[in-house]
């Protein structure tokens, strides 16, 4: 007799075991217990009755809305984890848009068999980070997918922020002569994740810069710096932001490689692998464009808060040339900086 397709009972690893099972995400009692124990216990703002939507209070001005998904491997790395990243990533997108992060949604896609203990660590990290950043997780969703359909845990967060009146980040407004600043040491996140994933044994560990940029934005607002554009330099790193801005404003951008703050660990590993730090992801570092006359006050403001205490001037907007983005390295001659393309692959020798 044909035994039929292989099938296993989802309740075999049901609620109460140390692994996430399909039962946790299929509605009903299993889901409800799971949400109550794991989610509601940590995020008191999520409506205790799990209504389909949350009602938010009135705010005086405009709102900013953004979303991001997080699929990092490994889930834990020096300086952060997927949970912290999920809060920081979305909060920073709001912050660099000139919006104070206020409310977040949290959606989990969990692979069947994922460790409950690890999930709890991630959820604790999400709760701690949200409190630290000053955002409330107000709604969410949990799905469990069969083994092999996800890599452990994926997270999506969407965020709503309160726009600060008069503060607009728009790279269209850049004109030749404007200065480019960076808020801190670059390339730490991407290399920290890479070093952890590949188990590089280093004397001094690389630590991700994963952190909230809102205090840095707030200090620029408080100092009344008329910022023209802000952007957190995540995937594709500084080079990706420079290319986007060059396209947006129609001028050329030129940076000085040796003006970028960089830790010794980042320099060492990027030299070893032949990876340009300008192309590596950051999670708590932004580029800021200001009119030339505001460079010093902007740097003073940025350096007054921990997240951007090593802020530096790195380049300027120049009249349009055939090269949209260039970089000066050892010789004073500017050399084109290309646009990032896909994953960074280390060289052979």
């Amino acid at each position, binding site marked *: 007799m044909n035994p039929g397709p292989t099938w296993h009972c989802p309740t075999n690893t049901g609620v109460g075991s140390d692994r996430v099972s399909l039962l946790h995400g299929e509605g009903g009692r299993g889901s409800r217990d799971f949400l109550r124990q794991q989610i509601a216990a940590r995020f008191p703002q999520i409506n205790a009755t799990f209504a389909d939507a949350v009602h938010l209070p009135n705010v005086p001005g405009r709102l900013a809305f953004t979303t991001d998904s997080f699929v990092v491997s490994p889930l834990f790395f020096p300086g952060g984890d997927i949970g912290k990243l999920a809060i920081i990533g979305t909060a920073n997108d709001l912050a660099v848009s000139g919006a104070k992060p206020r409310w977040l949604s949290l959606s989990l896609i969990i692979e069947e068999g994922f460790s409950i203990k690890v999930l709890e660590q991630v959820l604790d990290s999400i709760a701690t980070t949200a409190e630290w950043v000053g955002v409330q997780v107000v709604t969410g969703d949990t799905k469990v997918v069969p083994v092999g359909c996800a890599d452990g845990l994926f997270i999506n967060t969407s965020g709503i922020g309160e726009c600060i009146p008069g503060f607009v980040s728009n790279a269209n407004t850049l004109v030749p002569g404007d200065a480019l600043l960076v808020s801190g040491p670059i390339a730490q996140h991407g290399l920290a994740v890479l070093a952890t994933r*590949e188990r590089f044994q280093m004397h001094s560990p690389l630590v991700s810069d994963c952190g909230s940029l809102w205090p840095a934005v707030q200090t620029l607002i408080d100092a009344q710096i008329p910022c023209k554009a802000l952007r957190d330099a995540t995937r594709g790193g500084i080079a990706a932001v420079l*290319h986007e801005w*060059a*396209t947006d404003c129609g001028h050329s951008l030129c940076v000085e490689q*040796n003006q970028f703050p960089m830790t*010794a660990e980042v*320099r*060492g590993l990027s*030299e070893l692998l*032949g990876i340009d730090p300008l192309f590596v992801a950051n999670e708590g570092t932004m580029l800021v464009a200001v009119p030339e006359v505001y460079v010093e006050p902007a740097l003073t403001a940025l350096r007054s808060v921990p997240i951007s205490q090593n802020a530096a001037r790195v380049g300027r907007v120049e009249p349009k040339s*055939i*090269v*949209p*983005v260039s970089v000066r*390295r*050892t*010789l*004073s*001659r*500017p*050399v*084109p*900086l*290309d*646009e990032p*393309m*896909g994953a960074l*692959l*280390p*060289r*052979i*020798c």
Partner: protein
Amino acid sequence: MKLIDEFRDPALAQQLVESIRGVATRRWTIMEVCGGQTHGLLRHGIDEELRDVVELLHGPGCPVCVTPTTVIDHAIELALRPGVLLTTFGDMLRVPGKHRSLMQAQAEGANIQMVYSPLDAVKLAQELPSTQVVFFAVGFETTAPATAIAVSQAEALDLPNFSVLTAHVRVEPAMEAIAQAEDCRVNGFLAAGHVCTITGYEQYHKLAQRYRMPIVVTGFEPIDLLVGIYRCLQLLEQGSFDVVNAYTRSVRPAGNLAAQEILQQVFVVADQPWRGLGEVPLGGLILASKFRGFDAVDRFALERTTVAVEDECQSGAVMSGRIRPTQCPHFGSRCTPQSPLGAPMVSTEGACSAYYRYSNLVPLNTSPAS
């Protein structure tokens, strides 16, 4: 940072540029052998800075570029076989075979894992006893010793599920092939510093004398490259066909004897087809008979590559210095890093990739084809 900053010192670089201008009485043509040097020169704008006194031709030293398409196709074929895990260096993943690259094959389900060392592949074979782990070994004498150690480790461990698909090449025969060509325009060589770290440079004296061209062993940082060019121009101006080591912090005259010993144990020198350059006499390394059991070609009954199939890519002309990347009719139009015709456009050591990235000829964030 020690050993980096002093070799990128802008003031010293400027001084060297002046010295180079001071020593040259005419415009000389120099070939930098290694792709890493090509990228260093273009990345720091050295080629442009010195354009009036020296023409820099880019040599064959990009191991990824010279790996025949058929070998890449073999790697893809193996990675698609059930029960096989193909491991290789990251640089190899984007290089096109006949129809596709390893990265494209991965998207179609091929089992491929990037490793940082061949020893990682041996470790994988130990961890996955029911999987055939194949290491796709490419590279010059710089990377071949690590492959040799991996193979000898696998032998010591008696690992039945580890093998290597080799395309290791030797740089000196390729230099000789370029030097002896009738239309050779090269006046002097900047030899590849990392290769010489392993092989030493004593053997270059014969080459320098025979073809009457000075050879300067050169490193990769801007100051290294400028010193290499300076010493080479000095020798050319003196009419000397000497061999000079301008990378003394890494290279000894006799090289790394331990690395040479393991190479000799595991590999034998053989004629080898190079992509773009064709058959290079004594241009490759194949496994010695004692280690033939680890040869993936035999284990999986693949057809041994004897000729490098020509393709539309003009990499041979580029790598032998006959044309510059920008003189290729496909550069920046039909051939871009997103859609390469050949390896030099995608390898991190490829000359075409260096020109595409660092020269002013292609507006980088617009589509060059449009």
